[in-house]
């Protein structure tokens, strides 16, 4: 399952298919890369042109320009999320993983007994609406986001939601969501 920005992958590990893995992968965006490199180039060009115009200033300005560009590229790419995974281990728990371009992986493990209910929610921001998949946990007032950084379309969230419902033994699945899948 793919769209312009995200791809969804489902795999089962182990011979008994006991472990259910769902991955939402960020597809490479040429446009974003183009804009980031263009912005970096503009910063360097501005620093260079300032240096040329104001000749009595030291080369420090250009060096600061380079540094700023490197920082810009680093921030935009280094901290970029490559993939988020949901590993469902029935009777044991759920592991939520966030994979960054730098190679860093953040793991969050939630025991199966702590999950009250996985819920699909509509979130509203000042400019858009999107679906999010969250977990209602026993004893916690706040919802826990399953996919913390990414906002894939709801057709990719539904199989993950169903797997979480099955794992935490939630029987109520509405017909409209079955049809939507």
């Amino acid at each position, binding site marked *: 399952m793919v769209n312009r920005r995200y791809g969804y992958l489902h795999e089962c590990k182990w011979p008994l298919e006991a472990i259910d893995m769902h991955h939402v992968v960020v597809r490479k965006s040429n446009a974003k890369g183009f804009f980031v490199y263009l912005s970096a180039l503009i910063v360097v060009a501005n620093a260079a042109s300032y240096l040329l115009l104001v000749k009595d200033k030291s080369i420090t300005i250009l060096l600061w320009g380079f540094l700023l560009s490197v920082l810009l590229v680093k921030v935009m790419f280094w901290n970029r999320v490559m993939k988020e995974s949901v590993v469902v281990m029935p009777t044991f728990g759920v592991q939520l993983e966030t994979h960054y371009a730098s190679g860093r992986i953040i793991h969050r493990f939630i025991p199966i007994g702590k999950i009250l209910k996985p819920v699909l929610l509509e979130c*509203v921001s000042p400019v858009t609406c999107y679906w999010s998949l969250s977990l209602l946990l026993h004893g916690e007032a706040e919802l826990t986001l399953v996919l913390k950084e990414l906002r894939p379309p709801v*057709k990719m969230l539904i199989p993950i939601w169903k797997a979480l419902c099955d794992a935490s033994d939630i029987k109520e699945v*509405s017909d*409209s969501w079955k049809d939507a899948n």
Partner: protein
Amino acid sequence: MADQKHRILMVSDFFFPNFGGVESHIYYLSQCLLKLGHKVVVMTHAYGNRSGVRYMTGGLKVYYVPWRPFLMQNTLPTVYGTLPIVRTILVREKISLVHGHQAFSTLCHEALMHARTMGYKVVFTDHSLYGFADIGSIHMNKVLQFTLADVSQAICVSHTSKENTVLRSGLPPEKVFMIPNAVDTAMFKPAPERLGNDEIIIVVISRLVYRKGADLLVEVIPEICHLYPNVRFIVGGDGPKRVRLEEMREKHSLQDRVEMLGSVPHAHVRSVLISGHIFLNSSLTEAFCIAILEAASCGLLTVSTRVGGVPEVLPEDMIVLAEPDPSDMVRATGKAISLLPNIDPQQMHNRMKKLYNWHDVAKRTEIVYDRALKCPDQNLLERLSRYLSCGSWAGKIFCFVMIIDFLLWRLLQLWQPTEEIEEVPEFTLPHHQDEEIISNFNKDQSLG
């Protein structure tokens, strides 16, 4: 009666949990339209922590968009800032028609503008009367002229309001429908036992502000208390003029005859009304006045100022009208006291059930929607010609604003194509205890 079912987006800055006439109008109309088989979604701004999507009775979906109000519950006007969220909601809910409420709502004006840019048909309901002379009214009327220049149809709540809207906006009268408000007669019922006439109780429930005639009350109440020793007042409501009423009580030693309740939650209004015989309304301007409908539904005889759309609301035998002048109001109250023995609260309530019915309002609104959807589609150039007629300078500014809105919409379509906005699946609501409340409301509304 139309068979085509519509998908309507109601837009206004004024919705629950804020309480008032516009809010309850949107709610009741939406519930009745849902009952008729239409799909209704409400869009308003966030109230405190209430932000995001909420579902109300009957599956009414409400988008509380996190734009903070900046003045009198109005969203900060950014002209183009709400374009992305309005577009997203229109596409994901598969809306066919946008219905804006209240001229004073900035969110309504912006949403109608964006909806027209995107080619949707729009309907506008004006709930209030506005002036022509002061600087605020002049600007408001110009904004209204802009919004209504390209509206498909408009609705007003009284003939006086229609005349006022047509004069302010320059809209052709044939585009304006008159559909009055209604009252929830299931909620506003008379007291089970009729009150005795030994002591006459006059009830006043309104915001204690200049516009609602609180200054008139300060003159009228002592005079009535002096002329009629068996009359008592119950005053519910709060506002900046409350201090004047308290001073009046002290000055004339009326503490035992004038009871001040303070702010009365809407759920308790009926219990206050049924403790009285007469309802006194002293508003200086009203497009419609739902308060007197509620009072009449509870079996109270109404005394009101003859302003705005008030004379159109109740039959002559249910209301005594007076000029907004203390002496005439005292005369009218005296006349009402003499008419009291002839009043049957239950009969009044039964008549109100037949006269005012939210289902009837919904059916009439449905006709307006059908008419709006039959209006021809127009491209940008055809629409711009309508804006040019708004004024020599204003017309050009309006055209410029609409051109920019159109360009921004096209850019938004490139940035986020319509195919990427996911449509919301239809949900079947589970059977719930609210269904019993809804069926009781509908049963009561349809009787008679």
